[in-house]
Each structure stands twice: as C-alpha cells, then as structure tokens.
C-alpha cells in the first residue's frame, strides 16, 4: 500500500497545486453561472492564454522530454509531430488518425535507428 500511494506529502501537494486551482472554476460556474457571456472579450483573452499555456506544455514534453522519450533524437520527435499534424489535417481533423500517424513515424524511426 505504501508504494501505491507513495508519500502523503505528494498527495497534499496534488490538492493544493492541482485539485483546488482547477475545481474552483467549476464551482464558480455552478454558483454564478447564468450572467456570463461566453463570447465576452475577457473570456476570449483567457481562452487564448489557456490555449498558449497548453501549447507550451506540449512543446515542453517534446523539446525537454521526460524519461524514456529522451532516448529518441530531437529531429525524430519533431518529425513525428509534423507527420502526425499533416495526417490530422488530411484526415479532416481526425485526432485519432493524427496520433496513430505520429506514433508510427516515431516508433518506426527509432526502431530503424536501433
């Protein structure tokens, strides 16, 4: 059981850093919903910043990869993302087709490199 949970400190940090700052917006929506226009200027800015933060996270995983992903050369990781994106667009924005294509390019490339 102790290895399943790990240390309780990490779990407490999850609540402070992850659960509360995330959940607060759902609860605000529940309490104050109704009077907010989804197309208001403030929400356009917020959505743009949120999208850019998520894009930054995506870039971080690809540019500064964790664990096993670091064993794949830079150019192959970037190439796999690019190939996935091309297929995503060609397949009329199918998320699944894009993911599969990116994975095939990266795994085949890494396998070929040995």
């Amino acid at each position, binding site marked *: 059981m102790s*290895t*399943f949970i*790990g240390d309780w400190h*990490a*779990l407490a*940090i*999850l609540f*402070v850093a*992850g*659960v*509360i*700052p*995330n*959940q*607060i*917006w*759902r609860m*605000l*929506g*529940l*309490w104050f*919903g*109704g009077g*907010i226009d989804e197309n208001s200027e403030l929400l*356009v*800015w*917020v*959505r*743009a*910043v*949120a*999208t*850019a*933060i*998520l*894009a*930054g*996270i*995506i*870039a*971080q*995983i690809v*540019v500064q*990869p*964790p*664990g*096993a*992903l670091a064993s794949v050369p830079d150019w192959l*990781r970037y190439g796999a*993302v690019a190939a996935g*994106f091309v297929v*995503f667009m060609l397949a009329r924005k199918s*998320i699944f087709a*894009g*993911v599969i294509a990116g*994975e095939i390019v*990266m*795994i085949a490339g*890494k*396998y070929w490199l040995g």
Partner: protein
Amino acid sequence: MALPPLDSPQWHTSFRAFLWGARSIGATVLTLVLFATYLGIGALAHDSGFSLGWTLASTAFVWAGPAQIIVITTLGSGATVLQSAIAVTVSAIRLFPMVVSVLPMMRTEQTKRRHLILVAHLTAVTLWVECFRFLPQVPRNRRIAFIHGLGLGLVSVCLIANTIGYMLAANLTPLFAAGMLMLTPLAFLFSTARNCRELADVIALVLGLLLFPLAAMLNSGVDILVSGVVAGTIAYAVHRARAGIVGARA
C-alpha cells in the same frame, strides 16, 4: 448504439437512465481518444516519479487532462507549488463557461444546486461536447442521472487507462515506453487544434508552441506562464486589431 425513445419505460427510473449514460461511452470515438490520452498521462506520471495512487487521485479529483499534465510536468521538473497552481488555474478557467453552458440543459423546476455538484465536477471538454449530442435524446428529468452515468463511465475508462499506462511505462522496452509518452503531446496538440474556434485560438496555439523554447532559455521557473501569457496576449491583440479593422469598414 441508439438510445430508447423519449417516451420509453426505459426512462422511468433514474437508475436505468444512469445505466444508459454509462453504456453511451461505447457510442463515441472520443472515448478512444480519452483512453489514449490517459494511457499517456499514466506513463508520463510514472516517468516523472509519481506513484500510481497519486496518478489515479489526480484523474479522479482533477478530471481535466490539461491541468493534470501541467501538474505532472511542472512539479516533475522542479517548479514550486505556487507556480504549478497558477498554471493550472489559468488552464482551468475554460471550465467556467463550459459548466455555465451545460447546467441549463438539465435543470428542472425541482433541481437544487447540490444536485448539480457532481455534474459540474464531471464537466470537461469531452462531456461538454457529448452533452450537446446526447441530451436532446434524454427526457429532461433523467438528464442528471444520465450524465452521472456517462461521466463516471468516462472516469472509469480513464482510471483503467492510467493504470495500464503506468504499468506499461514501468515494464515496456524503452522504444514502446517512448511511444506511450509521445501519446500525450500528440493527443493534446490535435484536440486543441480541433477546438480552435477563432483566429485568436489558432495564433495562441502556434505562438505558444514556438515561444516556449525561447522562454525556457530564461530558466525563470515560470517559463510556461511567461510564454503562455505573452503568446496568448499577442493572439488576443491580433483578434482585437482585426475586429477593429472589420468594425471600421462596417
């Protein structure tokens, strides 16, 4: 899978409606995308040094893919709790308009606010999209039960995916472990690209990708926030400038 007609006795009890909701996870390709995403999150959590219990708790209590990868990536790379919390809360603001737009679809005269707490918790982009698709086929007084079934069904799928991803990352050859870790950026890149509704969203996505490597050179510890706020604000400025030009012409 087709849902029963609105006047069917199948809808007479909340429990039946709950089961129909849970079964509906089989009727959407988004379940497959979620499965792949959470497989990747499980692998990412493993390689970033978190326990399986921690990973499952993050899925059950956060229930928002972007927030989860932000917590895992930032804490895993040594950011402070405050830096993570700020990045998470900015990413989570989008949940506010989603909750606001979903709840009126299931409110009835008798609905109390506390009946909607679990629905609000389960609201994330997948459920939000599916509400618009499924709810017109569900009698209004059974919609909360149906969404509880659908949402908890999706959470269960993701908990299973997390566990499989975590176990596989621990035991796979480096080649396939790398493949699992790559699921997260690919799935999020394409689902974000698909959700771009306005020019501002597209610019934010592209600039956000390009500016992060630059911001990372600052080594500020808040690189993600720096690139996110700068890229997002530029995107918003372009949106405003364009609206101004269109407005001036009109």
